[in-house]
């Protein structure tokens, strides 16, 4: 028998791709101080929301209402996968590209991170965290982005790891397990760097886990603190859970979206997710704190300072994870939060007191919330086997996709989903790692509507509305060019006039938008970057678009040279 041919040692897949292999050392000087002043360097998009306040506003104005009609693709980066991946039919490209001095750091899905030349789109390095095919993913294989500081890129993986990568090479510096995949935990959010820590939240609220927010040391990966969003018996808030049994231990409340942060008050503002089981409230009588809440957390120790619960004893899957956008008005420190339940909440962010509550979507019939936050509930899906239809559906009047706030106009720009659903309670016994909804749910595929709506948060007045035939399911971006960028589920990427809502420009990207566009400047040229890759929990927020084409393209738009 002939000797075997020596096939050698397997090599990195990327070594066969033309990837450069390294990035310039731009991330070394990114630190807390720079992120504090992120908006003073508008050429960069240094942190998930662009700045700690969550406004998703850029002072860049090269692209403006006068010239946006000339906007054209400058480059496209694509990352279609090889081989089988978890959630192959439900992946979505949800990321917000981070840009530091000409280098873009962007996650894909399934544990991918890419460093790109932000001027040309050339791939500089890539990292892939191997993801078990059977990872519990309630709503698709997704990730929303990275944090960058101290020469490192921070990310979470679908199997609930927190990783620090070398920003120049993509090599792993440290790797910590943050969640229990056997309990149904996962992770999807973009981490947030605050001081010498990276802050992350858990996902998995549809599996009866116990939500938590964690801090890790930037350099060492040492665990600094963990705050559970559902209290144990005897802890404050535990009186809102049944005294007997272990429902608190399966209570959900996952903070699966990046917090905002007020450095003057030294408070993180984190939204929490639904209680579990989502629709079967009879097994968890009480308000179920701190699910469906905005919680203000001291980042130095994880201590909960105040909370505001939007949906006590939620029966409609109305997570309150949407961003809390920080803004000041008349000397007051406020935050604006647009909840899945169809109402917007303006709170005093020093103490959580309600300033104003107002509706932002046309069809709301689960109940009513008055201007001071008092709730009158009309529809409970609480009888076994009895279908109950309600608006908004569990995808919410607005889901995780983010608002933008322009300090030039004083308006909040909202991607609105106007979709109903029917829930039929079906009790099930809790078993670890198995979905724990407590209902069968069908979201309306017919009669969907959507909009980008502009609201004055100080009055609740809707100033303009750009209507769409299907829900708007992507974050919007506001710029000093008085533009609002918003992607559609059908693939169009739009620029609207921030003062009137007039559609000024549109480009068909070939796949629907469910991501967070960002903007930056390299070499004197402003770019607008947007990942286009339709997917995720489409059956929840836009079931009439369930068969929309998948994609894997990141577009960078600019004015012609």
């Amino acid at each position: 028998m002939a000797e075997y041919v020596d096939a050698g040692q397997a090599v990195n897949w990327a070594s066969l791709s033309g990837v450069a292999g390294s990035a310039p050392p731009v991330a070394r000087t990114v630190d807390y101080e720079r992120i504090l002043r992120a908006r003073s360097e508008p050429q960069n998009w240094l942190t998930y929301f662009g700045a700690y306040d969550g406004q998703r506003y850029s002072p860049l104005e090269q692209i403006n209402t006068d010239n946006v009609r000339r906007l054209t693709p400058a480059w496209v980066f694509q990352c279609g996968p090889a081989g089988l991946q978890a959630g192959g039919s439900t992946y979505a490209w949800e990321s917000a590209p981070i840009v530091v001095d000409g280098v873009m750091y962007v996650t894909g899905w399934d544990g991918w991170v890419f460093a790109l030349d932000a001027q040309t789109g050339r791939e500089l390095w890539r990292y892939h965290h191997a993801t078990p095919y059977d990872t519990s993913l309630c709503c698709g294989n997704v990730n929303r982005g990275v944090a960058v500081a101290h020469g490192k890129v921070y990310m979470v993986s679908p199997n609930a790891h927190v990783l620090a990568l070398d920003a120049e090479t993509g090599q792993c510096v440290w790797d910590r397990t943050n969640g229990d995949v056997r309990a149904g935990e996962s992770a999807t959010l973009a981490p947030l760097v605050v001081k010498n820590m990276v802050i992350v939240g858990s996902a998995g609220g549809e599996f009866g886990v116990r939500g938590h927010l964690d801090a890790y040391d930037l350099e060492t990966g040492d665990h600094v603190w963990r705050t559970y969003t559902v209290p144990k018996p005897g802890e404050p808030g535990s009186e809102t859970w049944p005294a007997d049994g272990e429902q608190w231990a399966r209570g959900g409340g996952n903070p699966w979206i990046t917090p905002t942060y007020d450095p003057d008050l030294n408070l993180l503002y984190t939204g929490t997710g639904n209680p579990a089981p989502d629709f079967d409230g009879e097994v968890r009588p009480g308000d179920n704190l701190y699910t469906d809440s905005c919680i203000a957390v001291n980042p130095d120790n994880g201590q909960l300072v105040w909370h505001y619960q939007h949906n006590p004893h939620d029966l409609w899957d109305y997570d309150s994870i949407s961003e809390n956008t920080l803004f000041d008005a008349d000397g007051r420190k406020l935050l604006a939060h647009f909840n899945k339940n169809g109402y917007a909440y303006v709170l005093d962010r020093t103490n959580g007191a309600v300033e104003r509550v107002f509706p932002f979507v046309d069809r709301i019939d689960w109940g009513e919330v008055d201007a001071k936050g008092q709730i009158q509930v009309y529809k409970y899906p609480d009888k076994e086997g009895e279908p109950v239809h309600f608006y908004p559906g569990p995808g919410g009047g607005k889901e995780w996709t983010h608002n933008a706030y322009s300090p030039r106009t004083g308006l909040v720009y909202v991607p609105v989903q106007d979709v109903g659903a029917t829930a039929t309670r079906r009790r099930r016994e809790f078993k670890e790692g198995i979905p724990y909804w407590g209902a069968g749910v069908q979201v309306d595929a017919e009669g969907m509507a959507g909009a980008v709506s502009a609201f004055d948060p100080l009055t609740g007045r809707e100033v303009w509305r750009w209507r769409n035939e299907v829900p708007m399911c992507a974050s919007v971006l506001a710029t000093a060019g008085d533009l609002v960028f918003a992607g559609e589920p059908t693939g169009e990427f739009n620029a609207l006039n921030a003062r009137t809502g007039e559609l000024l420009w549109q480009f068909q990207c070939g796949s629907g938008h469910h991501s967070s566009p960002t903007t930056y400047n390299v070499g004197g040229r402003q770019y607008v970057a947007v990942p286009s890759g339709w997917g995720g929990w489409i059956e929840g927020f836009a079931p009439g678009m369930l068969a929309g084409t998948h994609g894997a393209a990141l577009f960078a738009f600019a004015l012609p040279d």
Partner: protein
Amino acid sequence: MAVPTDERAAFLREVGLDRQNGAVLGRLLASGNVAKAEEGPDGRMHATIRIRPDELVFDPSVLVIPHGGDLDLELINDDLNTHCMLLPSNGDSQFIWLVNHSRGTASLNLDGPGYYWYGSPTGNDEGRGLTAAIVVLGEVPPEARLDRPAQPRP
């Protein structure tokens, strides 16, 4: 009528699902052997994966490792055609060409419980049979477990 699990292999053979161009055009995925990796004193795990002549299946087609960590593989292509392997590993997937009658190695890091597919991404090897799984047993580290009483599992 469903076939009991312990009669599955015989049934696959009877209907021709255990070979190429029998019942179907290729070879039904994950219909081959199951094996456990060995663990060395240093905690590294070892296994051999072969592609046998004309069988178009990785042997074993399900490799079970006792826990997350580092896995060293010897990879042997005994087939009369060229194949390759794209294997999951933290950092980047690992790729190797395996021409006819060749032998190579791969070192993987897989860090947690669950199962991971790999395959031969050339032509339609993946669909015709050369897709297989590495199963990682075990639990996440104690510090990653939720602070709650032990919960019932299925």
